[in-house]
């Protein structure tokens, strides 16, 4: 293993396990040790140990377990959102609650827990990354595109025509539903990447998690509503009003959370 590779693997492992300041200190110390004069690459692992094992030795087990618990909750929420967006089905049934609110609960828990954790334990690292800005722009544009599509297909005229099975309009609805499936799932995946990068790189990557989880939750909310609607039962023209009266505050909460994560 080369010195560079050793240090890269050690840095990754230690950033995942340790609080940011401690991780930075350990990486600086290991850089000194690895590049010490006379240190042979061939004996690096023998003398210093495997990078992950070295990181493990420095880990505060209780703090690491707390982080794993937080990560587990947030990642499970993302898994549920991706599943709901892709399949439109939930295996959770609560008698007193409509399933379309489930994604909003996941968003609320994710927003509160992630902001609390990273404002407390995270750390900024240099200027704002261009890759983060690009990723945010992609997720935002994809989310807005899907919301526009939903607005378009939830008009009263479209409903009447879809219920009469006019093929061109059914195709439009099918396209929007397909976009919802993929954008929702990919937003959840982007959110997971944001979460990992927020821990290992810079806490401002949390903005990607929050924006991704917001888009996925909004799409999940609409997906469950679409699954539960009855086209024969009037007044379907109220669907757009009903949906967007709820989507706008959900989206606004997500955007505010994204802004807070960037500060």
């Amino acid at each position, binding site marked *: 293993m080369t010195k560079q590779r050793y240090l890269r693997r050690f840095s990754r492992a230690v950033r995942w396990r340790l609080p940011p300041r401690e991780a930075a200190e*350990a990486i*600086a*110390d*290991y850089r*000194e*040790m690895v590049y*010490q004069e006379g240190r042979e690459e061939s004996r690096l692992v*023998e*003398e*210093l*140990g495997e990078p992950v*094992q*070295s990181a493990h*030795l*420095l880990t505060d087990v209780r703090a690491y377990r707390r982080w794993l618990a937080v990560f587990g909750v947030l990642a499970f929420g993302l898994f549920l959102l991706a599943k709901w967006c892709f399949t439109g089905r939930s295996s959770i049934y609560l008698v007193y609650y409509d399933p379309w609110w489930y994604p909003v609960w996941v968003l609320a828990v994710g927003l509160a827990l992630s902001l609390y954790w990273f404002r407390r334990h995270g750390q900024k690292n240099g200027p704002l990354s261009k890759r983060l800005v690009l990723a945010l722009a992609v997720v935002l544009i994809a989310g807005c595109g899907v919301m526009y599509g939903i607005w378009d297909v939830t008009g009263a005229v479209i409903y009447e025509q879809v219920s009469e099975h006019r093929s061109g309009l059914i195709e439009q609805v099918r396209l929007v539903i397909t976009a919802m499936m993929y954008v929702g799932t990919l937003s959840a995946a982007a959110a997971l990447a944001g979460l990992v990068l927020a821990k290992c790189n810079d806490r401002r990557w949390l903005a990607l998690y929050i924006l991704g989880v917001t888009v996925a939750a909004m799409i999940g909310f609409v997906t469950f509503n679409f699954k539960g609607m009855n086209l024969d039962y009037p007044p379907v023209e109220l669907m757009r009003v009903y949906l967007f009266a709820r989507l706008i505050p959900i989206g606004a909460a997500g955007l505010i959370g994204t802004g807070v994560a960037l500060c």
Partner: protein
Amino acid sequence: MLKKDLLELCLLQLLDGGDKYGYEVLTPLRSAFPDTQESAIYALLRGLGKAGFTSWYMAPSGGGPDRKYYKLTPAGRDRLEELRSDWRNMRDAITSFGVE
């Protein structure tokens, strides 16, 4: 006394002789305990820092970049005394069995 305590004793004893940077601490300890990896010794060194037995400061090295020097704190000196006493007791106990 466990091996970890012996390592800790040797590490604190080294620092008692004067402030040292990482390599000056790790090399003699690794020579004395060849089956112990430097990562374990480094983890112990960090643990002592967290416990308040050692502290560190950056100082220029001859021509190269600044180095991190470790030094013993008053709490570290107390801990060293405690470990020395444990070591003497253990040595006496072992000697009483005829082990030289």
